[in-house]
C-alpha cells in the first residue's frame, strides 16, 4: 500500500517534470522575444520606421549633453538607421544560399548514392567535421586566405567577365566585403545542408530510383526528376535551416565583412555589416551610453534579426505544408 502511494508520487513528479520540460522551448522563445522587444521599445519610439529605412548609424556624442526627443532621452546627434545591416544580412546570406544549395545537394547525392562502405563513412565524417569548425577559425581563414584571393583574383575575374551585369562590376578592393562574406557563410552552411539532404535522399525508396534507371534516365536525371521532387518538403526545410544559420552567423562575417557603416553596398565587393556582427561589435561602446539608448537600438536590431529568422522558418514550414497537402507525396522531412 505504502509502496503504491510512493510510486504514485513519483509518477506525479515525473509528469510534472515532463510538462515543464516540454514547455521549455516555447517559454524560452517567448522570454527571449519579450526581453528583446521590451529592450527595444525606447528605440522604437525614438526612431520609428526610420530604424529600418535609415542608413545612418551613429551613436551620437556619448560624452556630451543628453537631449530629450519626443519624450525619450538620447545622446545628441544619435541616429539608428539599420538598413545597411539589414541589407548586408540579407545579401550575404542570399549569396551563401546561391552557392551552398547546389553544392550541398550534389555532395549529398554523391554521399547517398555514389559512394559506399568505408569511403561513404569517411566522407560523411569529413562533412560533419566541417560543420564543427568554430566560426572564428573560418573568419581567420577568411581574412588570411579567402579575402586576399577574392581581392586579387576572383573579384577582378568576375568583374572582367560579368562586369556588364549590374552589381557585378566594380573594383574588388581589399576583398573584405559582401562576396567574401557570402563565400565564408556558404562554407559554413554547406555541411549543415549537405548532412540534412543526404539523410533525406537516403530515405527515397530504391524502387523509385530504379523506375527511373529502368527508363534509361541518367543518374543526374533520376536525382533531378525523381528523388529531389520526392524530398521537396524536407529540402525546403533544410534550406531554411541553412538560411537561418547564415543570417545569424556573427564572428566570421564580422571578420571578413569589411565593417561598412552608413553606406549601402554598391556592388558585390563592397564592404558590408550584418545585424549580428554589429550587435557584437558595438555592444561595448553602446554600454557607455549614459542614456542607454544605444543598447536599446542594439536590442531592436536583435529583435529584427530574431523576427527575420523565425519568419524564414515559418514561411518554409508553410510552404512545406501547402506542398504536402496538394499532392500525396510520401514526403520526408528534416
Amino acid at each position, binding site marked *: 500500500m505504502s509502496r503504491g502511494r510512493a510510486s504514485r508520487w513519483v509518477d506525479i513528479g515525473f509528469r510534472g517534470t515532463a510538462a515543464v520540460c516540454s514547455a521549455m522551448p516555447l517559454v524560452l522563445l517567448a522570454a527571449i522575444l519579450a526581453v528583446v522587444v521590451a529592450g527595444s521599445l525606447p528605440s522604437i519610439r525614438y526612431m520609428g520606421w526610420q530604424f529600418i529605412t535609415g542608413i545612418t548609424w551613429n551613436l551620437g556624442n556619448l560624452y556630451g549633453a543628453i537631449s530629450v526627443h519626443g519624450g525619450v532621452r538620447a545622446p545628441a546627434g544619435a541616429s539608428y538607421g539599420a538598413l545597411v545591416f539589414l541589407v548586408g544580412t540579407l545579401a550575404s546570406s542570399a549569396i551563401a544560399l546561391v552557392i551552398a544549395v547546389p553544392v550541398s545537394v550534389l555532395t549529398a547525392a554523391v554521399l547517398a548514392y555514389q559512394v559506399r562502405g568505408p569511403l561513404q563513412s569517411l566522407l560523411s565524417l569529413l562533412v560533419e567535421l566541417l560543420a564543427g569548425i568554430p566560426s572564428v577559425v573560418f573568419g581567420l581563414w577568411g581574412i588570411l586566405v579567402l579575402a586576399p584571393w577574392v581581392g586579387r583574383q576572383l573579384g577582378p575575374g568576375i568583374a572582367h567577365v560579368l562586369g556588364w551585369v549590374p552589381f557585378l562590376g566594380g573594383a574588388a578592393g581589399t576583398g573584405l566585403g559582401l562576396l567574401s562574406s557570402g563565400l565564408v557563410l556558404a562554407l559554413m552552411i554547406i555541411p549543415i545542408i549537405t548532412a540534412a539532404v543526404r539523410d533525406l535522399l537516403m530515405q527515397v525508396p530504391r524502387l523509385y530510383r530504379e523506375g527511373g534507371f529502368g527508363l534509361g534516365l541518367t543518374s543526374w536525371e533520376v536525382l533531378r526528376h525523381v528523388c529531389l521532387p520526392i524530398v521537396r518538403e524536407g529540402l525546403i526545410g533544410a534550406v531554411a535551416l541553412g538560411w537561418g544559420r547564415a543570417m545569424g552567423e556573427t564572428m566570421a562575417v564580422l571578420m571578413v565583412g569589411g565593417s561598412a557603416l552608413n553606406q549601402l553596398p554598391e556592388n558585390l565587393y563592397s564592404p558590408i555589416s550584418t545585424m549580428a556582427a554589429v550587435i557584437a561589435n558595438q555592444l561595448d561602446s553602446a554600454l557607455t551610453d549614459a542614456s542607454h539608448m544605444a543598447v536599446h537600438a542594439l536590442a531592436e536590431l536583435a529583435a529584427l534579426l530574431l523576427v527575420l529568422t523565425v519568419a524564414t522558418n515559418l514561411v518554409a514550414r508553410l510552404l512545406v505544408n501547402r506542398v504536402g497537402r496538394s499532392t500525396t*507525396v510520401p514526403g520526408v522531412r528534416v
Partner: protein
Amino acid sequence: MGKSISVAGLSAWYGDQQTLQSIDIELKANTATAVIGPSGCGKSTFVRCLNRLHETVPGARMEGRIELEEGDLCRMHPVDVRRIVGMVFQKPNPFPTLSVFDNIALALRLSGVRRRSELAERVERSLRMAALWDEVKDRLRHPATALSGGQQQRLCIARALAVEPEVLLMDEPASALDPVSTLRIEELIRELKSRYTIVIVTHNLQQAIRVADRTAFFLNGELIEFGDTSEVFEHPRDRRTEDYISGRFG
C-alpha cells in the same frame, strides 16, 4: 519489333556471393519467355542483368555476354541499354510526385521530344497499348498515386512502352495485384508479345502456361531447363523441374 537476345556465360555476384552460374540462354524475338523457380534462385538477378540494373546495386557485378543485334549489352552504355530493354517491377512504382501524363512524358521529354502534340500523341498511344487509356483519359493531370494498384502497374507498363524498347522485362508484374487486374495484365502480355520480346518472372505456374511461349526453370542460380512451355510443363527432361512444377518443393 522485338529482337532476340543471346546470353552466354552470364554470371552475377552480390559481393562475394555468386547468384548466377554461367547462364546460357536464347531469348527469341517476339516471344514471351517465362522465368520460374523457387524463391532466391536468381530470377530477379537474371532479368536485372539483362538491362544492366544489376550493377546499380552497391557491390554487385556481372560477367558474360548478352548479345543483341546492336552488339554486346555489356559493352554498351547502360543508359542506352535501358532504352532498348525496358523493365516493369514487382511493385507498381510510378513516380509519386508526377501526374499520370508526366509519368509517361518524363522520359520522352528527356530524350528530346519537345512538341506538345507529339508528346500527347505518344502518351495516348502508350496508354492505349497498356489498355489503360479509357480509364484514365479524364484523369491525365491527376497524381499517379491516385490510381488503383492495377492501374498503377499498367501505367508503369505504358511508361516502359513509351520509350519504344525492343525487349520488355517483367519481374512478377502481377504479384501485388488482385485476380482481375492480374488477368488484364496477362491479356496485355499476350497482345504485346507480337511486337516485343518479353521476359516475365513469375511464381504462378498457371500464369506461365497462360502467357509464355517458352519457359526457363532456374534453381540455385543455374538454368536447369529451358524449352517450349508445353514441353517443360508436360514432359520435363530434368527431375528437379518435375519436382518443382508438381509442387514437391519450392
